[in-house]
C-alpha cells in the first residue's frame, strides 16, 4: 500500500514536472536549430548548432544589457527593501492618528493599472532629467505596496513585548528596527529581494521608454530587438536569447527557493 502510494506519487510528480518544464526545454532545443529546421517544425534538432548563441551575442550587446539588467534589478531590490521595511515598521510599531488610512492608501496603489500611469510618469522622469540613467529606471519602483504588505505581515509576528522592553531600556526606535526587527525578518527580506529582483529583471515597456542608449538598456529590450516585424524572424536566435535572458533568473530562483517559499508564506498569514 505504502509502496504503491509512493510509486504513484513519484509518477505524478514526474508527469507534472514534464508538463511544467516542457516549454522551457522546448525553447532550449529550438535554440540549437538552424532557421530552416525551426520553420519545418521539428522538435528535436537534427544537429546541434551553437550558431544561434553566437548570433544572439553579435546582434545586440547582450553582455552589456545583462550587466545593466543586473545593476538595475539590484538597485531596485535594495531600494525596495529599505523603503518598504521602513514603512512597514511604522505601520506595525508606531501608533499615530491616520495610520490605518495611510496603510489602506498604500494598499490601494496595487489596484492602479500601470498602463494608465505610464505616460505621466514618463513626463515626470523627463522633467527630472532622469532619462537614460539608472535613476529613471529604478527610483519609480522603490516604493512597493506589495513589499510593504509582505513585510508588515511578518513584522506583526514579532512579539510586542520585545518592543516594549526596548522602549523601557531606552533603546531608540531606529536601533530597535535595525538591530532586532530586521535580523528577525531575514526570510521575508530575502523573499522581497528575490521577488523585486525578478520583476525588475522582466520589465520591458518602461525601460524602452526611458532609455535611448545601449549603455543603460536592459535585456528584455534586447529580446524584442531580435524579433522582426516585416521580414522573417530568426526564431533560433530569439530562443537562444530567451535562454540567455532567463538563465540568471532561474539560477537565482533555484538558489533562493528555500527562503522564498518560507518568506512568501509569511505575507500570507496574518
Amino acid at each position, binding site marked *: 500500500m505504502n509502496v504503491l502510494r509512493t510509486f504513484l506519487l513519484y509518477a505524478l510528480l514526474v508527469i507534472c514536472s514534464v508538463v511544467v518544464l516542457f516549454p522551457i526545454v522546448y525553447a532550449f532545443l529550438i535554440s540549437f536549430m538552424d532557421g530552416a529546421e525551426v520553420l*519545418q517544425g521539428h522538435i528535436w534538432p537534427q544537429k546541434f548548432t551553437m550558431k544561434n548563441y553566437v548570433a544572439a551575442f553579435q546582434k545586440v550587446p547582450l553582455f552589456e544589457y545583462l550587466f545593466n539588467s543586473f545593476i538595475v534589478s539590484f538597485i531596485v531590490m535594495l531600494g525596495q527593501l529599505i523603503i518598504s521595511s521602513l514603512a512597514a515598521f511604522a505601520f506595525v510599531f508606531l501608533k499615530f492618528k491616520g495610520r490605518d488610512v495611510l496603510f489602506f492608501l498604500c494598499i490601494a496603489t496595487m489596484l492602479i493599472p500601470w*498602463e494608465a500611469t505610464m505616460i505621466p510618469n514618463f513626463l515626470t522622469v523627463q522633467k527630472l532629467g532622469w532619462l537614460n540613467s539608472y535613476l529613471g529606471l529604478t527610483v519609480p519602483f522603490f516604493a512597493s505596496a506589495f513589499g510593504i504588505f509582505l513585510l508588515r505581515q511578518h513584522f506583526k509576528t514579532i512579539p510586542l513585548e520585545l518592543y516594549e522592553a526596548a522602549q523601557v531600556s531606552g533603546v531608540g526606535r531606529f536601533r530597535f528596527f535595525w538591530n532586532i526587527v530586521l535580523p528577525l525578518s531575514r526570510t521575508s527580506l530575502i523573499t522581497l529581494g528575490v521577488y523585486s529582483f525578478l520583476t525588475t529583471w522582466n520589465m520591458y515597456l518602461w525601460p524602452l521608454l526611458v532609455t535611448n542608449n545601449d549603455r543603460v538598456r536592459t535585456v*528584455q529590450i534586447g529580446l524584442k530587438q531580435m524579433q522582426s516585424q516585416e521580414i522573417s524572424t530568426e526564431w533560433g536566435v530569439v530562443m537562444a536569447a530567451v535562454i540567455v535572458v*532567463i538563465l540568471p533568473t532561474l539560477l537565482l530562483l533555484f538558489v533562493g*527557493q528555500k527562503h522564498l517559499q518560507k518568506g512568501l508564506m509569511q505575507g500570507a498569514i496574518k
Partner: protein
Amino acid sequence: MNAPLSVKSSPSVPVRRKRAVWTTLEGIVYLLPSLILFSIFLFYPMLKTVYLSFYATDHQGNPVQFVGIENFVYLLKDVNFLQSIKATLLFVCYTVPASVVLALCLALMANEKLKGIGLFRTFFSSTMGMSVAASSVIWMFMYNPSIGVINKVLSLFGISDVQWLLDPKIALISVSISTIWMNIGFTFLILLGGLQNIDPTLYESARIAGVSYWYQLRKVTLPLLSPTLFFVTTVSLIHSFQTFGQIDILTKGGPMDATNVIVYSIYKDAFINYNFGSASAQAVLLFFAILVVTFLQFKFGERKVHYQ
C-alpha cells in the same frame, strides 16, 4: 491590530500629548520615502488620468475640451468596450481558480516527505523566473498551427488542426492556459510555504485517529491553509485584471476582439490610436472594478478564512 505603544506609568496629560506628537512625526519620517514616491509615481498620474477622462484630447494627449462624462457614457454604450469587459471577466474566471487549484495540487504533492522532493519543488517554481515576454514567445511557438508542437502531438491522436489563437471561441482559453502556466510558479511557492507552516503534530494526531487522506485534507489542511489561499487569490485576482504582456504578444486582442481585455484596450487606445480621453476613462473604470472585486473578496472571502 493591537496597540503597540502601551504606556505603563501614566504620565501627565501634556507629556502624553507631546509624546503622541513625537510618535506621529517619527511615523511620518519612516513613511515619508514611500509616501513621496507613491504620490509622484502613482497618485499623481492616477489623478491626471481621472482628469483626462473628462476631456476630449488631441493626438498629443493634451486636453482640448471638457466633455463631462461623455467618455464614460460612450464607453458604456460601445459594443467593443462591452466585449472587453466580457473578455476580462472571462479571463479572470479562467485563470484565477485554475491557477490556484493547480498550484495547490502541486504544493500538496511537493509537501510530501520524499527523497529528492527538493528537486521537484525547484521544478514547479521555475516558471516564476520566466518573464512574460520570454514565456509568451515560447507559447506562441507551441500554439503555431502549422509547426507548433501542440498540434503535432494532437495529430498523433488523429485530432486535426486546432487554430489555438485564431479561433475566437478558443483564443481566450489558449491565452489563459499560457497565463496559468506563467502564474503557477509564484502561486505554488506561496502555497507550499503555507503548507509547511502547518503544525506537524496536527497531522500526527490525524494519523493516529486513522482518518483518510481526503478527510484530513478537508478538515485539517484546507482550513489551516485558508489565510494563505485567501492571500493568493487576492493577489492573483488583481494581477489577472491587469494582464497585458501575453495578450500583446500572442493575439494583439484578436481574433474579433475575443481577447481584447480592458488593459489591452487601454493600451491600444492610448498608444496606437491616441484616444487618450477614452483610454483614461477605461482606466478609471478598471480601477473601480478592481476595487469592487477586491472589496468583495475581503468582505466575503475573508469570512471563510480560518485564523489560528
